[in-house]
């Protein structure tokens, strides 16, 4: 197992390096620069600005300077928000986005696993079609539609919950978590149904039933562990996706997370911020993929046996 993790980490290095390099040169080849504005910028002002941010150096020097800073963990100053470093902005947005992502994922798991398992127990009956039909709607419903709908019903009509903010008013974290989590809930429901169906047809389940175990113990003790492997494998990328994809929900609910910075950096040509967020998120995605592979291996005895023989 240790060897497997080690090799996966080694493989990740060129991936992240490629991300840095491609992003660095791509953003700089985009038309317009960070200091262009609707009002004409005087040439001498522009020169002063470029000098303060080292943009007057040749491109390859800027690139190596950036790599050097990055090696020290310094993502550079933001161009759009003078006085703030990219590290600081990531540091302020990440906990919020991670918290939002965590609640969303919890919601998705609760609803998704329950619906999926429930459906798998009686396939091709009403008990299957109704939750799976709802899951299909959940997958198709974009968050920019679901969010305002929830706000309209629970925030404005019923006045149960606040409709914007994060930690300002009691209960303001509920609607965004549900909005962000519901698409994933639907996905998880389908995955867990498929996984459970496969497991429930296995020989060892028949054995468990044959020895007279009650159905609920067959499901919870024997089937779930194997049946949820596809869900576990999905969790890593899902969490990374939640972090990177929370932009829409953050905008609807005025949440001070990473997503808004991530998307706006591109529009603002905030070079260091684009690089910082991209590098950071791609590192996270690589890491989460690794973690979910490891958990999947740990849950699945056959894969585990492969690793211990060293055939990764």
């Amino acid at each position, binding site marked *: 197992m240790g060897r497997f993790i080690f090799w996966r980490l080694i493989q990740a290095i060129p991936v992240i390096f490629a991300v840095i390099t491609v992003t660095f040169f791509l953003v700089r080849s*985009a*038309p*317009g*620069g960070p200091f*262009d*504005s*609707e*009002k*004409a*910028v*005087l040439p*001498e*002002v*522009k*020169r*002063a*600005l470029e*000098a*303060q941010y080292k943009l007057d150096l040749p491109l390859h020097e800027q690139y190596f300077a950036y790599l050097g800073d990055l090696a020290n963990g310094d993502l550079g*100053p933001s161009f*759009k*928000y*003078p*006085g*703030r470093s990219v590290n600081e*902005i990531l540091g*302020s947005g990440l906990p919020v986005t991670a918290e939002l992502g965590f*609640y969303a994922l*919890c*919601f998705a798991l609760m609803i998704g696993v329950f619906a999926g398992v429930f459906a798998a127990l009686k396939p091709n009956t009403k008990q299957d079609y109704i939750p799976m039909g709802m899951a299909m709607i959940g997958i198709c419903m974009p968050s920019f539609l679901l969010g*305002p709908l929830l*706000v309209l019903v629970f*925030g*404005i009509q019923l*006045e149960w*919950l*606040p*409709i*914007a*903010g994060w930690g*300002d*008013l*009691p*209960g*303001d*974290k*509920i609607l965004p978590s549900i909005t962000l989590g519901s698409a994933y809930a639907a996905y998880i429901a389908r995955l867990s149904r498929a996984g459970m169906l496969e497991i429930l047809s296995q020989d060892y389940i028949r054995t468990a039933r044959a020895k007279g175990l009650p159905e609920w113990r067959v499901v*919870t*003790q024997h089937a*779930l*562990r194997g049946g949820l492997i596809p869900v576990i494998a999905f969790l890593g990328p899902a969490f990374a996706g939640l972090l990177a994809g929370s932009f829409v929900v953050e*905008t*609807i*609910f*005025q949440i*001070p997370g990473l997503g808004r*910075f991530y998307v706006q950096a591109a*529009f603002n*040509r905030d070079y260091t911020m684009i690089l910082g967020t991209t590098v950071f998120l791609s590192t996270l995605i690589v890491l989460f993929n690794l973690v979910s592979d490891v958990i999947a291996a740990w*849950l699945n005895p056959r894969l585990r046996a492969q690793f211990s023989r060293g055939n990764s």
Partner: protein
Amino acid sequence: MRVYRSLIIAACLGVLLSACGAGESNVTTGNRTGFLHYGNGAEPQGLDPHVVTGVPESHIVRAIFEGLAVKNPVTLEPEPGVAERWEISEDGTVYTFYINPDAKWSNGESMTASDYVWSWNRALHPDTGSLYAYMLYPIVNSEAYSKREITDFSEVGVKALDDLTLQVTLNAPTPYFLQLMDHYSTFAVHPETLLKHGKMTDRYTPWTRVGSMVSNGAFTLEEWSLNRRIIIEKSEHYWDKDNVSLNGVYFYPTENVVSEERMFRAEQLHYTQTLPLDKIPAYRERENSPYVQAPYLGTYYYLINTDRPPVDDARVRKALSYALDREKLTKTVLQDTAIPAFAITPPDTLGYNPPKLFDYDPEEARRLLAEAGYPNGEGWPGLEIIYNTQEAHRKIAVAIQQMWKEALNIDITISNQEWKVYLNSVSQREFQVARRGWIGDYVDANNFLDLFLTDGGNNNTGYSDPVFDDIILNRAPKAKSRKERYQLFYDAEKMMLEEMPIIPIYTYTSKHLVHPSVEGIYPNLMDSLNLKYVKLDPERSLNME
């Protein structure tokens, strides 16, 4: 596995439940405690007066800092700010400001004239790279200093005669100079605080953070949570603190206008920066409507590249402009939230009214187009309008495309460009017709007319007329009276419009939702809200039925 799962579920349920329970709305709490909840449109880029350039920044900066003179919220005429009075020399070129002895920094230190000398040195210094350095260019030698032609700041016309007397010498009479004193780029900063965190010219030191920031306005910075909220509270050192009613203000970065309107409806905000166009009719119909609309010092227009055929011909440009039914456009597409414009300067800019040379006249437009060689659109080589990607701009462009097709039988293509690409196209003059908006920085026609100076950075049209340049640069500043000066502006604007290097479309309006409990917000041309004068009356509530 089962144990973990139930633990996670329990944890989630716990979190969700503990968060439940509806509380008091922000508006109710705010009215009780004297705090205004203000939708500010976007996260400010910063709060350093010599660095920032945007509107959301200006709202906060103008609340925590104050200029030498401030605008009266109703008339927009200058009133005492940090300076309790001023004298202007007979020839209009020497301003002597007498600083209020009670004017203090938020750390309790007295403000001095030398703070201004230091601050304006910073604002003008080429290394600072202030985008608004040109606001101080009326001062003797300031332009040369900011272009590094001279390096000794003592040659610039700013002197501290004593602790409380500041003398400013201008190149020429500048009737709008006092207006500039209320622009944040001319505000004073606290020298010792900045030097504690870096050099004078550093743009990105943390001196503007909570705890470090020293300012001189009616409010002080108390909390700055990135992209969440900014809280300011009433300053105990402000010279006029007895006239400040609010205990503080919460600013929210309400970038999503749809969410902002919903927050207002749920009483999470007292005041919104704007509201979605399609919500306006419903708000208008309401009795005691919270919707407030007022003319705004800005013009929406199409910029024409006068070097590119077919619009290199003034007759074609005029034909396009005459064939545009502005009344219809503002009534339908813009839901009556804009005023048809026939000139670049908005109407009643501190008493100045621009010329109106033409009206909607498709007959004349067709005649002009035929004269230019395209009778009934025959032989028309095509024309492209570019705009930055935004639904509102697209709708307007489509409507104009149809109007021109109907009136002149000519084909127009419209294409959108991402914001920075669009800026690049405009500054490189890679366009035939481009959407453009201009919002005045100070209330004076000069701020709109100097766009059309030969080779001006914001001209982009290729329009050039030495007589026009002479009026704006030399004759208008030396005018003896406001009347004479406005007459010169009128003549210049008329000359410019006869060449039609732009197609004026509409004058902007400011659009806000204001909770009935808020008093002291006066709609004005600058959309300038001085939070110092705002009061909250909890007795008046919002009726959304």
